[in-house]
């Protein structure tokens, strides 16, 4: 499947496109950050330091009004003074309302987003691709039945469906031990990483339809190919044909869709966390929700920085997807001769 020609196309497209380079750099950074989070993070992302709360990011000084009360001659006097809060060089992105280090939270949030994004996409593909291939290959009643199911699940707004499913199943989360911490390489970091299983399953079930539709479309066009007919005429079974002749030729658009879906699922995960449906508190969406109350009082960074993180990762993954699509486009790749 990964022929020399595909690699050549990928390289050529990469050289010609600045956006592809940006996308790849962003995605690789996010992957590295997420993987080596215990080493990148400067603090335990869950450790609260209330005396250091709401520190601004480096480069931004905040003035805040502090009100204190004193007993002066038996009367309570309220004194309001304007204090300047200077950033602490120890907290690059500042701290949130409970004094947790924003930078470390962003780093660990990348883990959640990426894990949910990738696992959710894999689940969606694992459900959607077989359904789509079967529907497209067999057509007729099978197709009608499977695609009506897909249409119905598409008719629900995905967020509403996700909220409903989580409401039904509860918020299950799985503690995955962090290998680096277990090995003693970063002892001050949290020992385990919380994987919100329900969220993974829900985003997978919400997004499988896209894979089913793409796979079905490909299967529909591929089943008309002469080589599928030839293969049938030579006595190959339907499953053999689907696995050997249809799937390999349908894989390119599925891969491209997969990358785009990772970004879409990261967004969906953030939305769910924002609404409080996630099983973990280490999530960009959760932080945005936390910081929402502080935006009006001037602590913009608690919401904005995770927002930027979401934006950069989604842009990065989409640029990567565009690059893959341009490079793997069958129109450019050519089907060989008379196609």
């Amino acid at each position, binding site marked *: 499947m990964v022929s020399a020609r595909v690699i050549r196309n990928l390289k050529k497209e990469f050289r010609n496109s600045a956006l592809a380079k940006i996308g790849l750099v962003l995605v690789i950074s996010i992957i590295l950050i997420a993987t080596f989070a215990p080493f990148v993070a400067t603090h335990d992302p869950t450790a609260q330091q209330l005396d250091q709360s709401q520190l601004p990011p480096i480069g931004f000084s905040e003035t805040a009004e502090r009100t204190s009360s004193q007993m002066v001659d038996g009367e309570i006097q309220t004194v309001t003074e304007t204090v300047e809060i200077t950033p602490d060089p120890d907290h690059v992105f500042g701290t949130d309302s409970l004094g947790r280090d924003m930078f470390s939270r962003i780093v660990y949030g990348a883990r959640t987003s990426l894990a949910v994004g990738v696992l959710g996409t894999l689940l969606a593909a694992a459900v959607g691709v077989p359904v789509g291939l079967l529907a497209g290959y067999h057509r007729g009643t099978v197709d009608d039945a499977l695609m009506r199911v897909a249409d119905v699940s598409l008719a629900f707004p995905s967020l509403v469906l996700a909220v409903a499913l989580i409401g039904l199943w509860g918020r299950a989360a799985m503690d995955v031990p962090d290998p680096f911490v277990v090995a003693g390489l970063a002892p001050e970091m949290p020992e385990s990483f919380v994987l919100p299983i329900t969220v993974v399953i829900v985003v997978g079930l919400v997004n499988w339809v896209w894979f089913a539709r793409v796979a079905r479309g490909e299967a529909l066009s591929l089943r008309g190919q002469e080589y599928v007919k030839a293969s049938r005429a030579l*006595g190959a079974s339907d499953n053999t044909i689907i696995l050997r002749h249809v799937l390999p030729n349908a894989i390119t658009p599925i891969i491209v869709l997969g990358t785009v879906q990772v970004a879409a699922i990261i967004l969906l995960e953030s939305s769910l966390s924002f609404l409080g449906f996630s099983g973990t508190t280490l999530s960009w969406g959760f932080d945005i929700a936390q910081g929402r109350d502080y935006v009006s009082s001037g602590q913009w960074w608690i919401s904005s920085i995770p927002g930027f993180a979401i934006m950069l990762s989604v842009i990065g993954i989409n640029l990567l997807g565009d690059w893959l699509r341009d490079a793997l486009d069958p129109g450019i790749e050519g089907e060989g*001769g*008379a196609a």
Partner: protein
Amino acid sequence: MSERLQAASGAGRGPDADDVLSVSNLSTRFFTEEGQINAVESVSFDIRDNEILGIVGESGSGKSVTSLSLIDLVESPGRITEGEVWYRNPELADEFRSNDAVSVDGDHIDLRTVPPRVRRSLRGPSFSTIFQDPMSSFNPSITVGEQIAEAVEVQRRATANPRSTRSRTQGYGLGQYLLDGIVPGRGYTSEESMDRAIELLEQVGIPDPADRVDEYPGQFSGGMLQRAMIAQALAGEPDVLIADEPTTALDVTIQAQILNLLREVQEERGMSIILITHDLGVIAEMCDRVCVMYAGEIVERGTLSAVFDDPVHPYTQGLLGSIPDLEDPRSRLQPIDGNVPGLLDSEMDDRCYFADRCPKAMQSCLEKPDEIVVDAEAEHGAKCVLAERSYDPDEALPADYFGGDSE
């Protein structure tokens, strides 16, 4: 109508012993949104040992659908609505002799009555097909060798366990697919099948077959791929090879090579070939017997010489008249006016379907003609009144009789 057909074709009263395949009254219809299309209309013919049967006709006359109907590959919305396909296979006949649902006649078994999985198990080992366009008949993402080896593999399963149709039809499971994807160098095909593929490629005249098996279809030329496809079709060691326009996509010199190859292979293996083409030259060069198809029907049949030297049906005459004559290159070709009818059931009148294009259409052509024996010796028959009587200009239909009909 069936009893009238029997007279000429010998079909209907059961297959003869030397018929590998005997088709009787086969009808295939397509149920489209515009209506029912009668693509194949009560077609009967048989294929004997060691012969090449030609089926010739214009585009849209039902040739290809006939061949697909034989191997049960008609796609929805198409359906075989009627007919019997008798296949000679003593083992299979014995297997099903006690089964009431399956018609068995001596060594022959009616494939229309056996379960679909049995029909599928016969594709490859019993019937193989060569398609028109070799370029698109190979999967571009798998090497040519693998694809031929795959066909060998199907044949191996069939011979390893001839009695069990189950093992023949067993495919390629998901588990194996995943394993192949993870473990590098593991293929669906075994080493022996690959060696056999090299052998087959050598037989069909591909130079350096050992190197070329690892190449992808895109690296082959059209003629080479057509050879590879013949190799693939031979892998199953079929009794009947269906060649559906095998040379149409190739240039003339390659055409000749491929036809020679087909003939050699046929003589060597003693199999039977159904050659479907619109090229009368190919028919003349290759075939022992010919069926001429028009609008889903066989309108004329017989031995090659009977049909070509002494055509009865004006359609056959028209086809032959539209070939350039080498001896008199200045004469104009005589095309048949008009087009093949659309075959929509609602638009087909109960008359000779060719009457609207026929230069010799008469009053009696407004009734559906039966198949009439012209020459029993040459098995020559035609569905035309002219087989019995001669053209009478007094009875001719007025030129504008079908006025709006033909366009």
